[in-house]
């Protein structure tokens, strides 16, 4: 099962509504993934600063103390803002360096994302409660990806919740299961990717991040997934200014897309698209197997 939602806003006037609309979409997908949930919001560009999101694994973390240690560790200014069990660090230092430092020095937390635009939040339990606790409806931005999880490939933990992100401003949500993730994880570790879970979807996220870092466009990186990933998947991927959808060639995992002049939406089921404004005039279609659908804010 699992439920996926993606919303990419073409009309800037809707940016302030991104979180509320994503919440409406995710609520419809609660029964597809009742054990955990998460979302990535692209917005609130931090200028010269990089944002790093993290969440405590089990016990509360003293985030102010972590910010001071991180500042020393990466030799850059760090500020922190907290929300429930989450922290959003802002630093003038490098995001990838900060991520690595946190993974190495803060085993009691999970690093969720790093980048100029992306912020990821996730939790275990009812998606409706997670959405409310983490104030999704008040968030604004240009695009967002949500996931409600019914775990199959790894434990129900905050670390196993989607979206997964290893590279700067890149994240992925997945409905399905991969069968060659262990071998691929070993290869990616040799390429310098840092993993925080045994989850198959994290491998897909890292694979894309690795390809994009190597110079692939988002579209090209997804096309390569068709050769290198074995298993069932419907992916939604976000980058700083891009949004893409890919289904495996067998396309067992459901997906529906809709587009108006104002937005592009993807969801596991139409139910999640039905609450969007102007849906009555949307072009609605089912994404074809093994076909990359991508949008870019700059285009």
């Amino acid at each position, binding site marked *: 099962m699992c439920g996926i939602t993606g919303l990419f806003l073409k009309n800037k006037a809707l940016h302030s509504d991104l979180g509320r609309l994503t919440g409406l979409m995710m609520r*419809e997908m609660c029964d597809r993934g009742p054990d955990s949930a998460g979302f990535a919001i692209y917005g609130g560009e931090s200028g010269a600063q990089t944002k790093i999101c993290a969440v405590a694994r089990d016990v509360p973390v003293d985030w102010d103390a972590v910010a001071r240690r991180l500042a020393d560790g990466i030799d850059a200014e760090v500020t922190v803002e907290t929300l429930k069990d989450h922290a959003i660090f802002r630093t003038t230092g490098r995001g990838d360096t900060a991520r690595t430092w946190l993974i190495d020095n803060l085993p009691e937390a999970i690093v969720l994302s790093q980048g100029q635009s992306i912020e990821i939040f996730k939790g275990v339990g009812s998606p409706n409660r997670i959405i409310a606790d983490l104030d999704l409806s008040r968030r604004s931005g240009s695009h967002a990806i949500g996931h409600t999880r019914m775990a199959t490939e790894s434990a129900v933990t905050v670390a196993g919740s989607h979206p997964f992100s290893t590279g700067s401003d890149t994240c992925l949500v997945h409905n399905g299961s991969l069968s060659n993730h262990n071998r691929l994880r070993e290869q990616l570790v040799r390429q310098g990717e840092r993993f925080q879970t045994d989850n198959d979807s994290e491998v897909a996220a890292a694979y894309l991040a690795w390809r994009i870092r190597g110079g692939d466009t988002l579209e090209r990186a997804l096309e390569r997934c068709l050769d290198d990933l074995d298993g069932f998947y419907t992916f939604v991927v976000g980058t700083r200014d891009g949004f893409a959808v890919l289904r495996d060639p067998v*396309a067992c995992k459901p997906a529906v897309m809709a587009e108006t002049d104002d937005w592009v939406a993807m969801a596991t*089921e*139409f139910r999640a*698209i*039905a609450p969007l404004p102007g849906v009555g005039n949307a072009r609605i279609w*089912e994404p074809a197997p093994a076909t990359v659908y991508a949008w870019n804010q700059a285009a």
Partner: protein
Amino acid sequence: MAPAKTSVARRAAARRNSVFDLSTMPLREVNRLLHETKDGDFLIRNPRGLHAIACGLDGDLNIVVDGHAGYYCAGMNKRATVTINGNAGTGVAENMMSGLVHVKGDASQSAGATGCGGLLVIDGNASSRCGISLRGLDIVVKGSVGHMSAFMAQAGNIVVLGDTADALGDSIYEARLFVRGKVNSLGSDCIEKPMRAQHKQALRKLLDAAGVGGEVDVAEFKRYGSARELYHFHVDKAGAY
């Protein structure tokens, strides 16, 4: 929890020519009312992709679902006519027994799966696995169908006015497939077969039933079916089945 008893007022409302609004009425109650009713015309508003709308009907009802339906709409249908003014999700009319289901938009995966009888008409495209394990239902798709359509189809007809994606009729038994457009590839044990007079006649009937008999020429279609080499059934014994 025991099923809630349908109120007298609701029962009265379920008589002929009722409108049910799914934004205010629970879907289970709407379905229960339809199950308790043997005939009449009903309009179902605000389907919003909900699952199992107008499922399990058994009567001479005429239902219009005004919008996009979710999974399994009109599943297991007997005798009723169900029209969907929009798209249908996975498994529309799955396992239907008789009657007519008409999707005015596109249908998602597994449309008409395991259907035993009646007619399913899809004005738009149908996605993958259309008519999977078909057992006697007739399906007319005015657009194109996705991959693995007619997989293991046993009986019935599938008519496609557009094209088909890969692996049409994989492991097919005795269902008949008529395709006007391009077949991207045939599945295992599915072959093109000659269109004889009896097939043209059967196809014409299906096109008429779907309301396009006047505008579509049966001569434009090719017929596909089983080579009968994959399953344990020798062609010499076909008459026994």
